[in-house]
């Protein structure tokens, strides 16, 4: 049966751990390949851009591996892309992490660091914990979040967050100790989360499942 299934490539930019992303994909029955190879990416039906590591290092590795144009051309040709954590941030225009750097610029906006203080309170950074994701204007009905209930807990681990130039792409926000930030987005064939669905127990796995179902990857 595997031969008939669409091929999903998990982009390996040779930084962190892709094990759990792979496990989540296997669990929901996707046909996945973990690859750093440009040809594999160009031949894929859908892409997952995972998220462990540092922004600058990630962009520099993507560049060294000559994957930047391949990812961009796949996305503009309409292939679904699922970004996770750093994989969400890489889609944006610019980041402040360890000095500034440019991203893939598929979504217009910037990446900001959490402040050290907010309302005279010390803010612990990274934001590492389970936190709630909640709706703004956009419905989740047609998105991978369709089985997630409003204010569900998801697992976060990050120091930076995205600030899209256009609110329209925002699917969820999250509030960390008073600071409200965008925790997932969708724009055309792109879906991306700041949290780690593959680390968010059953509800997180439902996001993988629904992303695969909506994009007819199973």
């Amino acid at each position, binding site marked *: 049966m595997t031969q008939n299934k669409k091929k999903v490539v998990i982009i390996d930019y040779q930084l962190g*751990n892709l*094990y759990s992303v792979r496990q989540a994909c296997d669990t929901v029955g996707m046909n996945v390949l973990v690859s750093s190879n440009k040809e594999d990416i160009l031949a894929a039906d859908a892409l997952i851009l995972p998220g462990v590591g*540092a922004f600058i290092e990630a962009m520099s590795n993507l560049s060294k591996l000559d994957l930047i144009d391949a990812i961009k051309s796949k996305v503009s040709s309409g292939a679904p892309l699922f970004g996770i954590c750093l994989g969400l941030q890489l889609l944006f225009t610019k980041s402040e992490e360890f000095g500034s750097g440019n991203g893939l610029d598929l979504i217009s906006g910037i990446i900001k660091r959490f402040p*050290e203080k907010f309302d005279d309170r010390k803010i612990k950074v990274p934001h*590492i*914990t389970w936190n709630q994701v909640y709706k703004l204007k956009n419905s989740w009905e047609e998105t991978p979040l369709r089985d997630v209930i409003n204010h569900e807990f998801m697992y976060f681990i990050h120091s930076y967050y995205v600030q899209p130039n256009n609110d329209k792409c925002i699917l969820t926000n999250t509030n960390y100790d008073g600071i409200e930030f965008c925790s997932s987005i969708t724009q055309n064939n792109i879906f991306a989360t700041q949290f780690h669905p593959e680390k968010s127990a059953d509800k997180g796995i439902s996001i993988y499942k629904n992303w695969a179902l909506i994009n007819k990857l199973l």
Partner: protein
Amino acid sequence: MKTTRIIPRLDIKGPNLVKGIHLEGLRVLGKPADFAKYYYENGADELMFMDVVASLYERNSLHNIISETAKQKFIPITVGGGIRTISDIKEVLRVGADKVCLNTAVIKDSELIRTASRKFGSSTIVVAIEAIKEENGKYLAYTDNGREYTGIDVFEWAQKVDELGAGEIVITSVDNEGTGQGFDLDLISKISSLVSIPVIAHGGAGTKQHVVDLIKENTADAVMLSSLFHYQFIKENESKVSSKEGNVEFLKQKRNFHTFKPCSISDLKNTLVENKIECRI
């Protein structure tokens, strides 16, 4: 919203889950996989595996435990014990860990914190600090389960760990660890006030109230617990001991320390919520 994480800690020796007092005198409690499954289903926010012997020849057995856990348990897994180099970190991440916990290696070469956090992202690098209170009231950092003296001041070290780019600190009071007498609140609140990164409190919890007190009166961002949950698990389950290695008498007798009032994770979380402490239920 600020949610307090509850992290069961599984000390591993070879194929077994063990537990000591003051990080020593290890007793075999059962199979790590049985405990991991129970904690996952019971609402653990993360799992921490600590290879307490960290001998090279037993490394594969730890890696198997991590891989098997990461295949089925979709929550974050941190692994510590015997991780010395960048390639050690890579290897542990490759077999399924999400974060690594470093102590001895970064005491010897603190620059490893910087290198590793640049390479893998700050949030992957957790530094464990084992603190022992000296007679003069000073807290000094130790390594190797509180055995090796370093002479390093705990508070200065915590600040340096933060500056070098670690993502989190696990602060263990070796004096209180395994005793069930409660956390060292002074130690933990001082560390937490000095650093800008999340602090995980470890060592001393014997009752749910100890955890409530810690969060209410302190600023710890997460709690790492073992005895409190392990003894509850043993009460509820017959876990087969997989080898004759180590001290299993404790387990056979199902004896409990009078200082402990074991509880399950969900039980603890309900109590926290009743006390207006946010956590994931």
